[in-house]
């Protein structure tokens, strides 16, 4: 059942990205998708170690794995793109609203269904710290990527 819900979340996040006003270029979208996916894949290795070692005590199904993979590969990176696009719109109230809403959605999603998002449950404080650090890291990388633009000499 939860895999179906995850697929719906994936559809909603992709379509949200399509309809929102964009503040990033095509190259910046691709760059952010790649770096956010890589960051998420690498940071989920330890919480999801039961999946890697095939722990017999850990009762999971193919549905758990597929929901986890969909969240890790599509939902989280695409939601990151949506929130970064909105945060960079330069309207203060939109930035504050988007930043806090994104954190709230990520936290609620990971806390309510850890089995399908982070596999093992993580405390709310640690998750909050992770997501704040994650967004700061992603925005710093984006700034670095933008700095490359005027230096171009192909």
């Amino acid at each position, binding site marked *: 059942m939860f895999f179906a819900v995850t697929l719906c979340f994936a559809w909603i996040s992709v379509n949200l990205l399509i309809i929102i006003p964009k503040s990033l270029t095509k*190259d910046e979208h691709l*760059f952010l998708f*790649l770096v956010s*996916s890589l960051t998420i894949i690498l940071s989920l290795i*330890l919480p999801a170690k039961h999946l890697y070692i095939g722990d017999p005590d850990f009762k999971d199904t193919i549905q758990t794995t597929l929901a986890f993979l969909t969240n890790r590969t599509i939902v989280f990176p695409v939601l990151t793109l949506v929130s970064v696009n909105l945060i960079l719109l330069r309207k203060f109230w939109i930035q504050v609203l988007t930043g806090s809403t994104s954190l709230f959605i990520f936290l609620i999603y990971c806390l309510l269904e850890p089995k399908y998002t982070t596999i093992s449950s993580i405390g709310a404080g640690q998750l909050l710290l992770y997501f704040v650090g994650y967004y700061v890291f992603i925005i710093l990388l984006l700034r670095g990527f933008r700095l490359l633009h005027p230096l171009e000499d192909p």
Partner: protein
Amino acid sequence: MIDNDLLFHSNEVFIIITGALAYIVMLRLPKQFTRQQTIIMLLISIYLSALFDNTLCVHPFNFYYVNNTSIPGFWDLMSYLMFGPFAYLFVYIYSILKKNRATYFIYIVVWAIVALFAEALAWHAGVYRYQNGYQMFFSLPIYLLVLTVTMIYYYSYIHNQEE
């Protein structure tokens, strides 16, 4: 005892040598793309290798594991970085080729066969350890998919801007 020690280190030696050679070749080639495009091409390779390794290695698939343990560690990260320049080289060579309607098809097939051969070398070096009936041939569709995705990137992001 000596053989076991060598086997233990051969995967790391393979990753260092292949990665270093690939990055040297990439940096020695005349510049063809912008810095942003170069960074994106490196990231495409790193992302795709990390994605497939962290998808096919997890339960219930567990088709193989990379290097010495089933949980990715430092050398797995190095192996993802090792793949970095290959998307760049793939796009670089393609962009300077004289093309006709079948070029992209033949080009992808040739690269997929070369990738399979490289995987065989990596398997011998102990980088990949197959399990649950996985065979090297199963990687062929993955290479075809990955190379096609990279080709789509070239046509939508680089070729379009050149025109």
